[in-house]
């Protein structure tokens, strides 16, 4: 008989979400927006930047350098300025992220075999992008330098050969789209769980459930399974999009990915239940979910690596389920992470799930008093 009751609960829950236009809105719009915006816009790549050039050199090498910069794919426009004042104003106004200043002696120095110098001024207000731009410019200058330098048998041509594993062309989307698999599952799990109980409270149907012969744990299970199903559907859609739309390689085992996803979803849904146990209205539930989601996303390695955080802050990320699942997702997509490593990340997820679900159901029982 409990099976009949549970089935009725789950069917009801799914129907309530899918038949409600608001529910559909919450389920469909944000995930699609995230997929589009994050995968295309959220990139730490630096391309299409504008630079300024102040060329006070009359010779051919200055022109040659500008020509090469202009030809590089990273740079969109290379604008020429005539005075240091214009250069400063251009950087100040952020017309360009970098300015190259070539001194009057540049060509003469090169011709004479003296060390020549170019100055690169970068906008420290965007220091991350500026550093990357500085790297590009240095490489262009280095190449030129090698060509103009007279062969010196004493100077070995020291070469650094970079090799990039897992993502040879360092396509940012290969990083971002697998991230989204984890982020979306969190968003959906939290919001669906958080809202479902708050909505029933608002409509008064929660009392209706409470006077039915359902036991508290049955109600809780009935509230956990539907978001699990919806979360799994979202994960699947995103995996398909990653592989077939964005061409991200899937090197590891899908079975392991789904296996660990169950624990991840449980952990997230536990947080959702917790939020909904504390909120009386849907609006409070949304704010509560938001309040959890923003720190969880920022302290997970999704936006920036955990290694970059200060030492004292890093332990906090240990209770963040997203952190573990991100490692699993990257591992399975790009790295073919061995099963024991996936297990090592799944165990903390399971522990977090036990903690969040336990706390949430305890809170529930207490609130029913």
């Amino acid at each position: 008989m409990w099976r009949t009751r549970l089935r009725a609960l789950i069917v009801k829950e799914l129907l309530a979400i899918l038949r409600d236009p608001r529910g559909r809105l919450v389920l469909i719009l944000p995930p699609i927006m995230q997929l589009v915006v994050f995968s295309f816009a959220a990139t730490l790549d630096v391309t299409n930047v504008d630079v300024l050039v102040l060329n006070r050199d009359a010779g051919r090498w200055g022109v040659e350098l500008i020509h090469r910069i202009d030809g590089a794919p990273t740079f969109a426009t290379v604008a020429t300025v005539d005075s240091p004042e214009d250069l400063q104003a251009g950087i100040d106004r952020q017309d360009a992220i970098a300015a190259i200043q070539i001194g009057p002696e540049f060509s003469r120095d090169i011709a004479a075999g003296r060390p020549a110098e170019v100055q690169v001024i970068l906008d420290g207000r965007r220091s991350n992008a500026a550093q990357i731009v500085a790297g590009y410019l240095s490489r262009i200058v280095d190449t030129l330098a090698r060509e103009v330098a007279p062969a010196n048998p004493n100077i070995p041509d020291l070469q650094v050969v970079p090799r990039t594993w897992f993502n040879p062309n360092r396509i940012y989307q290969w990083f971002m789209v697998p991230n989204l698999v984890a982020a979306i599952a969190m968003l959906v799990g939290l919001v669906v769980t958080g809202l479902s109980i708050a909505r029933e409270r608002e409509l008064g149907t929660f009392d209706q459930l409470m006077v039915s012969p359902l036991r508290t744990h049955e109600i809780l299970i009935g509230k956990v399974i539907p978001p699990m199903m919806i979360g799994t559907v979202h994960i699947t859609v995103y995996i398909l999009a990653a592989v077939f739309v964005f061409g991200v390689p899937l090197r590891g085992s899908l079975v392991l990915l789904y296996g660990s996803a169950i624990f991840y979803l449980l952990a997230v849904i536990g947080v959702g239940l917790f939020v909904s146990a504390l909120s009386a209205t849907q609006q409070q539930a949304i704010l509560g979910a938001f309040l959890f989601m923003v720190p969880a996303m920022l302290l997970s390695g999704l936006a920036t690596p955990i290694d970059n955080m200060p030492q004292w802050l890093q332990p906090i990320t240990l209770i963040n389920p997203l952190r573990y699942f991100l490692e699993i997702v990257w591992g399975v997509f790009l790295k073919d992470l061995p099963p024991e490593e996936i297990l090592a990340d799944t165990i903390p997820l399971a522990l977090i799930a036990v903690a969040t679900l336990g706390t949430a159901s305890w809170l529930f029982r207490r609130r029913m008093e």
Partner: protein
Amino acid sequence: MSPAAPSPAAPSPATGRMRRFAALVVKESTQVVRDPSSILIALVLPMILLFLFGYGVSLDATRTRIGVVMEAATPVIRDLAASFQASRYFEVELGHDRRQFEDRLILGEVRGIVVIPAQFAAEGAGRGAPTIQVIVDGSEPNTASFVENYAQGVVSRWAQMRMTDVTGGLAGQPAIAVEQRFWFNPELASRNFLVPGSIAIVMTLVGTLLTALVVAREWERGTMEAMMATPVTAAELLAGKILPYFLLGLASMTVCVLAAVFVFAVPFRGSVLALYAVSACFLVPALGQGLLISAATKNQFLASQLALFSGFLPSFLLSGFLFEISSMPEIIQYLTLIVPARYLIPCLQSVFLAGDIWAMFLPHMAVMLLIGAVLFVLAARNMRKRIA
């Protein structure tokens, strides 16, 4: 008994308007102080965000863990390895076999492997092209680029030093030297631009989310209806809503700026005037958006959803705060043009790091005001003193 007859001398229209406006402002302010969700959004949330962006989000890959493989233990190779160890960007683990690090690269325990081949010692002394391999973890492309760039930097600096030692004098210098100068932020701390940027996000939350919620609440509770049936005009109603939240937005901003300067030690090189001028101009579209959302939805739940997805997310993603706009696809670049935070963030970053650059502030302020004007017209149309 009857309610007292009013005195026949009715106030003049102008003082009546002022008094109604003042009453609305006082009411709204009292509510802000008494409503926990206002305090949550205007005070707690900004502090959490500032904390997260001040500490949690950092683009500076300081002390990235890498493995350095010395395939032979010659002095030259040890010397090069030592300069990796000396770099402030790396935390180096030394090894003799690359296989030792390959598994750890998969696990993400090291972010790169520098392989100095055995031939290097021999070759390095003579001719040829000794190659140093840098293997990076491409699953995090940004970190990968940093590791590669810094590794390259370490190697070329080492080479210069070495050549200078060997040949004595100038021969070690490259034919063209690049002198890099990072203006405004020479220490290249990402916090210095992330913290000012996050203030824009805080103001979006206060301006858009909070305003949308409180106005939607008035619709839900029926107080809007009661207001509308009094002599209050729609303009007064709007203005009475805007002023308190405008001031609250500026107050949140002020608290955040103080925290940025005194807690996070971000330099503040511009003027307070410029700070308030650009912030004030930003609050116009932010409030306009909040009013528009609430007038269109009249429902707190939908309003909060819409405010988060049309306010918070674009301010975060499409404003150049964290991600370079120029690197986005063209269509999305056009989309960013209507995101008010896109104009505020460079201004704030400049006020903090560069100083007053009015040549940039003024056009940006103009665009924000323009967007604000459009939003206000739309909101006012939706709000006209009518229910349906």
